[in-house]
C-alpha cells in the first residue's frame, strides 16, 4: 500500500511564484488583435420608464464602432436570462431578465445601452453622449415596504413584489404547546457587496467562419456560462468555448452570468470584432450581485431547564429587481435554522421579495452563515431569558456524537459531529471562565467586555445529484475529472471545479501525486477551459471543490492505477491479484526488486502486445456523485471591549475551532479560515450596502 506523503502536508502553493512576479493571467491582462472596448450606459434611476434612446451623437464620437440597445439584441440573444428554478414555491413571480431592458429600468446601474469603440477611453467618452429620456417611476428599495399591498411595484407589469412564498414545515404547535418559555427576535442580515479584488471582466471573440464564440471571463464556473450564454446566443456547446483563467476572487458573485456577459458576446457577434469589458469598482459595488439582504422573524419555545423544544422562523429575502440566477439558494438558511441542536419541531417559511435594487445571489457561505447567526442569536436570547449560561444551554441541546447519522427536522441527514468537542476546545483556548470573571469585574469599573459565542454547522460539498438537480433545472452538482498519463509519464489532470484563490493547483496535485505515487512536479492540473477535459464541470462555490471535485480526481486516478495494474500483471505474466502497487511501482508479491514504474506502464499502454481486449492509452474520466452532503462544524469565541460612550468595538481575542474533515494542505485551510473570519468580522462591524429610499446607492 502506498505511503501517504502529500496528503496532509503543508506544501507551498505551486501557483505562487507566477502570482508574486506579475505573471498572473487575469482576463484584463489578455490581448487579442483588433480588440474593441465596451462601455455600458446605465440607468441613473432605480425605477424608470425608458421613453427614448438617442444614440446619434454617441455614434459620431471618435472611435465609435457601434451603440447597441435592447432592439439590437433581438435575434442575437434569443430570450431572457435563465434563473435556476430552485424550488417549486406556492407562489413564484420570476420576472424575465433581458440583457438590456426594452422600456423599463428596474435598478440603479442597470445597463441600458452599450458603446463599442476602438479604444477604452473613447468608449467611456461616447457612453456619456448616449441620450436617454427616462420617466422616473416610484421605486421600492425596502424589503418590508415591498411586501405591503400598497407598495410601489418593482416591475410595473407584475401583480406584486412577492417572488416566492414557500413553507418548508408548517407546524411547530406541538412543541410550542409544551413551552415554559418563549422568546422572539427579529434578526437582520444587511446587504453586502462581495467585492473580489479583481472586478468582473469579459472578452468575447466571434469566428464567423466557424460560427463559434470564445469567451474569456472572470468567473467561478465556466461551464455554466457556456450553458447559459451559449444557449442564449443559440450556439451549440460545441461552438462555444468559455475560458476562466486566473480569477481574482469571487466569493459567490462570479457564479452567475451577468447582463454584460450576454451583451459583450452579442456585440462581438454583431460587430465581428473581439469585444472587451472590464468592470470599474464603482460598477462592481453598484451592479455585481449583492449578498445576504435578509430579515428573519424567529420564535423559540423551550423549558426553564434549558431544553429547546421548537422554533418558528420566517425568512424575508430581498431578491432585488430580478431573482438572482442562483438567488434561490439562500433559503437553505431555513433548512439549517436548527444548527447543531435537537428540536422537536421547526416551522420554516421563506418569502422572496422583489425590490428596485440589484439582485442578491450567493455570497461567502450563502444562506449558511445566516442560519448560524439566527440560531446562535436566538439561543443566546433564550439563555438570557431563563438566566442560564449560553454555553450550558448549547451543551444541553447538542446533537451527540452517538446520534449520527442524524436526520434533522427537514429530512437532511447529518453525517458526523462532535459539537461538545469543538466548543470545549474553543472555551479552553479562550479561557472562558477567566474572561467571564473579567467581564463581571470590569462592569464594576465601567469596563464593558463582551463575549460572543457561536457554534456552527454547515451543509457543504454540493452535492448529491438527487438533491441538487431539482434546484438547478436538472443539472446535479456532481463533479467530473479526467486523468491522463502520457507515454512518457506526464500526468495531465482536468477538473470541472475552478480555482480563484483556493489553491487547487497545489491541493489537487497532492491528491494525484499520492494516488499515482508520482512526484507532484509530474502532475499538471488544468481547469477553467470548457474546450478541455470532461463534458461538464460544475464550478467552485458552496464549499464543494475538494469534497466533490477532489474525490472525482482521486477516483479517476484510481481508475488509471487499476488499468496500469492489469497491464503490469500482463507484463509480469502474473495474476492481477498478485500484483502490488506501492508508491508508483508495480511488482509481484514478494519480488519488490523487480518493479515496473507507472510511467513504464504508461509507455507500454500506448504500444503493442496489450492484454486481450484492452484498448491503448492510460486515462480515465470520472463523475463523482457524492452519497451525501458533508457537514463540517465548529465553535468560535470572540472577546471584545466596547466603549460605552462611542460604541467603538475593540477586539481582544478571537478563537476558532473548526472540524473540516480530512485536511489535504493545512496551510491552505488556515488561509481560508483567516479570510472567512475577516469577512465575518467585517459584516459584524463594518460592511453594508446602503440605499436611499429612492433606490439609489448612498
Amino acid at each position, binding site marked *: 500500500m502506498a505511503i501517504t506523503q502529500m496528503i496532509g502536508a503543508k506544501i507551498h502553493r505551486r501557483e505562487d511564484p507566477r502570482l508574486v512576479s506579475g505573471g498572473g493571467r*487575469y482576463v484584463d491582462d489578455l490581448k487579442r488583435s483588433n480588440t474593441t472596448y465596451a462601455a455600458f450606459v446605465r440607468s441613473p434611476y432605480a425605477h424608470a420608464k425608458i421613453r427614448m434612446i438617442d444614440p446619434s451623437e454617441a455614434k459620431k464620437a471618435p472611435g465609435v464602432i457601434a451603440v447597441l440597445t435592447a432592439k439590437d439584441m433581438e435575434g442575437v440573444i434569443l430570450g431572457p436570462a435563465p434563473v435556476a428554478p430552485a424550488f417549486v414555491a406556492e407562489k413564484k413571480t420570476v420576472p424575465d431578465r433581458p440583457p438590456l431592458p426594452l422600456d423599463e429600468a428596474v435598478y440603479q446601474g442597470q445597463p441600458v445601452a452599450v458603446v463599442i469603440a476602438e479604444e477604452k477611453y473613447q468608449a467611456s467618452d461616447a457612453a456619456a453622449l448616449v441620450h436617454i429620456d427616462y420617466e422616473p417611476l416610484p421605486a421600492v428599495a425596502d424589503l418590508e415596504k415591498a411586501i405591503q399591498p400598497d407598495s410601489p411595484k418593482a416591475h410595473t407589469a407584475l401583480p406584486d413584489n412577492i417572488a416566492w412564498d414557500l413553507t418548508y414545515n408548517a407546524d411547530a404547535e406541538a412543541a410550542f404547546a409544551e413551552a415554559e418559555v418563549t422568546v422572539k427576535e427579529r434578526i437582520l442580515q444587511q446587504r453586502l457587496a462581495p467585492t473580489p479584488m479583481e472586478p468582473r471582466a469579459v472578452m468575447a471573440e466571434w469566428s464567423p467562419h466557424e460560427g463559434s464564440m470564445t469567451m474569456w471571463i472572470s468567473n467561478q464556473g465556466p461551464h455554466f456560462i457556456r450553458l447559459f450564454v451559449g444557449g442564449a446566443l443559440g450556439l451549440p456547446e460545441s461552438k462555444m468555448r468559455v475560458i476562466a483563467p486566473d480569477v481574482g476572487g469571487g466569493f459567490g458573485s462570479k457564479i452567475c452570468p451577468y447582463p454584460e456577459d450576454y451583451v459583450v458576446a452579442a456585440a462581438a457577434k454583431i460587430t465581428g470584432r473581439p469585444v472587451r469589458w472590464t468592470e470599474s469598482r464603482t460598477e462592481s459595488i453598484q451592479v455585481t450581485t449583492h449578498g445576504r439582504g435578509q430579515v428573519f422573524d424567529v420564535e423559540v419555545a423551550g423549558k426553564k431547564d434549558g431544553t429547546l423544544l421548537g422554533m418558528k422562523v420566517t425568512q424575508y429575502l430581498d431578491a432585488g429587481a430580478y431573482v438572482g440566477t442562483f438567488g434561490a439558494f439562500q433559503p437553505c438558511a431555513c433548512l439549517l435554522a436548527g444548527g447543531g441542536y435537537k428540536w422537536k419541531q421547526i416551522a420554516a417559511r421563506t418569502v422572496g421579495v422583489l425590490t428596485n435594487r440589484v439582485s442578491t445571489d450567493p455570497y461567502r457561505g450563502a444562506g449558511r452563515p445566516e442560519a448560524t447567526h439566527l440560531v446562535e442569536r436566538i439561543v443566546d436570547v433564550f439563555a438570557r431569558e431563563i438566566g442560564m449560561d449560553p454555553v450550558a444551554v448549547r451543551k444541553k441541546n447538542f446533537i451527540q456524537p452517538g446520534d449520527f447519522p442524524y436526520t434533522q427536522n427537514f429530512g437532511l441527514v447529518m453525517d458526523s459531529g462532535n459539537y461538545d468537542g469543538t466548543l470545549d476546545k474553543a472555551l479552553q483556548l479562550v479561557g472562558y471562565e477567566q474572561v467571564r470573571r473579567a467581564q463581571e469585574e470590569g462592569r464594576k469599573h465601567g469596563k464593558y467586555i463582551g463575549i460572543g459565542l457561536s457554534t456552527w454547522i454547515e451543509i457543504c460539498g454540493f452535492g448529491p445529484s438527487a438533491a441538487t438537480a431539482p434546484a438547478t433545472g436538472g443539472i446535479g452538482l456532481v463533479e467530473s475529472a479526467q486523468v491522463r498519463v502520457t507515454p512518457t509519464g506526464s500526468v495531465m489532470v482536468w477538473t470541472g471545479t475552478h480555482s480563484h484563490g483556493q489553491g487547487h493547483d497545489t491541493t489537487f496535485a497532492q491528491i494525484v501525486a499520492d494516488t499515482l505515487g508520482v512526484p507532484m512536479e509530474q502532475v499538471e492540473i488544468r481547469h477553467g477551459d470548457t474546450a478541455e477535459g470532461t463534458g461538464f464541470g460544475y464550478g467552485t462555490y458552496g464549499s464543494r471543490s475538494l469534497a466533490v471535485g477532489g474525490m472525482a480526481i482521486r477516483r479517476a486516478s484510481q481508475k488509471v492505477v487499476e488499468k496500469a495494474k492489469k497491464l503490469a500483471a500482463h507484463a509480469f505474466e502474473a495474476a492481477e491479484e498478485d500484483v502490488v502497487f506501492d508508491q508508483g511501482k508495480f511488482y509481484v508479491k514478494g519480488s519488490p526488486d523487480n518493479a515496473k514504474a507507472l510511467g513504464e506502464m504508461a509507455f507500454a499502454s500506448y504500444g503493442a502486445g496489450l492484454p486481450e481486449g484492452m484498448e491503448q492509452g492510460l486515462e480515465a474520466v470520472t463523475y463523482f456523485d457524492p452519497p451525501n452532503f458533508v457537514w463540517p462544524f465548529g465553535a468560535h469565541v470572540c472577546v471584545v471591549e466596547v466603549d460605552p460612550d462611542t460604541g467603538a468595538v475593540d477586539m481582544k481575542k478571537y478563537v476558532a475551532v473548526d472540524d473540516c474533515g480530512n485536511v489535504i494542505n493545512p496551510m491552505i485551510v488556515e488561509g481560508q479560515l483567516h479570510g472567512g473570519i475577516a469577512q465575518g468580522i467585517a459584516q459584524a462591524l463594518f460592511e453594508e450596502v446602503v440605499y436611499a429610499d429612492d433606490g439609489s446607492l448612498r
Partner: protein
Amino acid sequence: MKHKVSTTINGRRREDEVEARLLLVHYIRDVAGLTGTHVGCDTSQCGACTILVDGKAIKSCTMFAVQAEGRQLTTIEGLADGDKLHPIQQAFWDEHGLQCGYCTPGFIMAAKYLLDTNPTPSEDEIRKGLEGNLCRCTGYVNIIKAVKTASQVMSGGAQPAETPVATTASGS
C-alpha cells in the same frame, strides 16, 4: 492631442506618445504591456496598482502617464533578480501571503517601499505601512507575517527558506 513621454521602467528606457489624460497605470498595462500591475478600483483606495516611482510607492492610478516624464518606474516585474525571487516575493510565497493573487503585486511593492524606508518595522508599523492596500482573501494575517519574514531576511536576521517542497510525511 498626444504628448511625448519618456520613462525608464524596470531599467529599460522607453518613449511613447500618449494622451494627457492617460493614467499611469493604463500606460504601464496597455502601452508598456506590463500586466502585473493591477487595477482594483477607481477611487485610489485599493492599492493594487502600487508601483515605485523614483523609489517611492505610488498608486499608479493617481498619476497621469505624462507626469512620469523622466522618472524611474519599478513594477512587480522588475523586482526579482532573474530567476531568483526578491526576498519579499519569496516571503509572500513562504508565508502563504496570497490567495487569488490579484492584490499581491501592489502589496509587495508597498512592502518594498516600507522596508526600504524602515528595514525593521514593528507589526503596527507594518499595518500602518500597508494601510493603503486592500486584500479580500487572506484577512491580512499572513501578509503581515510575510513582511515580517522579509524584513528579517533582508536585514540579515534569517536566511530565506529553501524553495518549499513537501515538508512532512504523515504516516501510512
